[in-house]
């Protein structure tokens, strides 16, 4: 016991710079923000929240943000499970290169990447030109400045996060479990649902939380690919804080964003725990 406490003290001392930093530059501002969002005149109350959600435009923005973010999370999980599995099957000599290529989009500036989408998805862009030249379309599709453009931009932006989380989760999968399940007569579907999914749930939770949070808070992609027609929480927040200087509404939006991501993280964890128990 006695020998433990100096070690514990040392741990606290080692932790304190990081703790201090987090407390001063993260926790305090978050608490201040929380308080500000309840601030009504001289007192505190729920009025800012009620006013925000009473407005059907704001509700529309909230639902749009929610469904686009959930769809991006879902689609990236569906696409990345087989991809992560394939990455692990690749000769380890090439795996480093493949992982490098996956990370590459994360290393380019979000502004440059988004401007590229403007060119690709535009009326005269590669997508429309090739669809028209192959005769699949008569008229160019309107993709840019719609919800679909935002979806496509976010999916490309966030997919590497999901893929990397799943790859690292699958790396920890014991080598024998899949052959063992097969030898016991499990079908491909059973192998996935009863063996791979429960054992890689942590990766899914981490990846899902990163992707969803990233989508809810992304600013450049909805601002440039969606424009004012596809207002999302992040772009509305900017309008409230930077243009109309309505800090109460801006604080409400920030807190709503925070709570939404916490809720989704909580749900993903619950779901993961359940599949783990089922396994």
């Amino acid at each position: 016991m006695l020998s433990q406490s100096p070690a514990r003290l040392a741990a606290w001392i080692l932790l304190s710079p990081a703790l201090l930093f987090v407390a001063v530059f993260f926790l305090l501002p978050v608490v201040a923000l929380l308080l500000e969002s309840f601030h009504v005149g001289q007192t505190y109350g729920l009025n800012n929240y009620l006013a925000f959600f009473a407005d059907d435009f704001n509700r529309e923005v909230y639902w749009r943000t929610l469904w686009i973010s959930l769809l991006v999370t879902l689609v990236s999980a569906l696409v990345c499970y087989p991809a992560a599995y394939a990455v692990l099957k690749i000769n380890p000599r090439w795996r480093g290169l493949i992982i490098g290529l996956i990370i590459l989009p994360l290393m380019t500036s979000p502004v440059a990447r988004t401007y590229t989408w403007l060119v690709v998805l535009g009326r005269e862009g590669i997508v429309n030109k090739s669809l028209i030249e192959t005769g699949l379309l008569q008229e160019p599709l309107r993709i840019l400045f719609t919800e679909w453009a935002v979806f496509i931009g976010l999916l490309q932006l966030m997919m590497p996060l999901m893929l990397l989380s799943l790859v690292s989760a699958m790396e920890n999968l014991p080598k024998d479990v899949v052959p063992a399940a097969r030898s016991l007569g499990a079908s491909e579907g059973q192998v996935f649902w009863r063996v791979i999914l429960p054992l890689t749930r942590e990766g899914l939770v981490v990846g899902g939380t990163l992707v969803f949070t990233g989508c809810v808070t992304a600013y450049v992609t909805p601002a440039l690919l969606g424009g004012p027609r596809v207002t999302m929480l992040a772009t509305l927040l900017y309008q409230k804080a930077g243009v109309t200087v309505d800090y109460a509404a801006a604080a409400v939006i920030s807190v709503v964003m925070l709570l939404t991501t916490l809720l989704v993280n909580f749900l993903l964890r619950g779901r993961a725990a359940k599949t783990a128990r089922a396994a």
Partner: protein
Amino acid sequence: MRVWLGWLALVLVLSVGLAQQRTLTVSGFGLNQNLIDKNITRPFEARCNCKIVWEVGNNADRLAKLAARKDNPNVDVALLGDYFAQLAANQGLLERLDTSKLSNLNELYDFAKNPLGGNFAVAFTTYAISIAYRTDKITTPITSWRDLWRPELKGRIALPNITTTQGPPVVWLVNRAFGGTDTNVNPGFERLSALKANVVTYYNQSAQLAGLFAQEEVWAAPVGRFAWGNLLATGKPLAWARLSEGQAGVSNVAVLVKGSRNQELAYQFIDFIISREVQTAQANDLVDSPVNRNVRVSADKAAQLTYGLQQIASLRTVDPDYIIKVRDAWIQRWNREVAR
């Protein structure tokens, strides 16, 4: 000990030397910054033995920053659209100008000398807002705001977003074109709401609009004359519409931020940007239309600018006080009825 004193002396000498290199912080628009550096920053720095630090962004952002730093301002001079400067003045962010310190003031057109009243600002440029359009795609010239509703422009126009500087003046002009008044903007909003099918998107910066023209997304858009040089640089065949309803004028003004610690330098800077020399250089590069009466440019350049007393006199100025009063309500209404 002596070595130590020697170092101390060196440090003191260096810090005095650095202190003499004064810094002036100017809040500006950022558009055409390379030309502004050529015409203003470098010549002024050479003259004043000081350094100019630019803080750039759109009007709304920069005004929000000025308000946030009210008690400890980091900006000395701000260049703002007229109604944003009026907002700043209303919030007590500006110093009244001592016009006796501006030797070039008398060379300006009268409207530019004291555009907000109270000597809070001096205009350094004024620009018309009209419609820029592709002459190869739109063969019947655009001559009225009503032409934006033509069916052949379906999915081919961009409007300035309501949060931009041009947004509210465009709403005001459209409202007038459809018979609305300053107390009844329903005609304007109803027509703008019905324009949705023609609108590709609502742009937030004029640089973004140049991109939309370059990529063939857009054939026509209301825009300020200051962006004309950038639009021409897209290489597309473009014309500037002469509208039967007349053009609206908005001025950009220079203001002195309250609490600035470099006031003498700030006055020199404001005086410099309204001088004949700078105004001529800026006009020839199509950065800003001149408000100095003594500026002479070629007929060819004049045609690309808002130039000359006659043209300036024909502009309908949008009243900054009116825009300020209605802006927040218009943003809400626009979000709900137009950009949806």
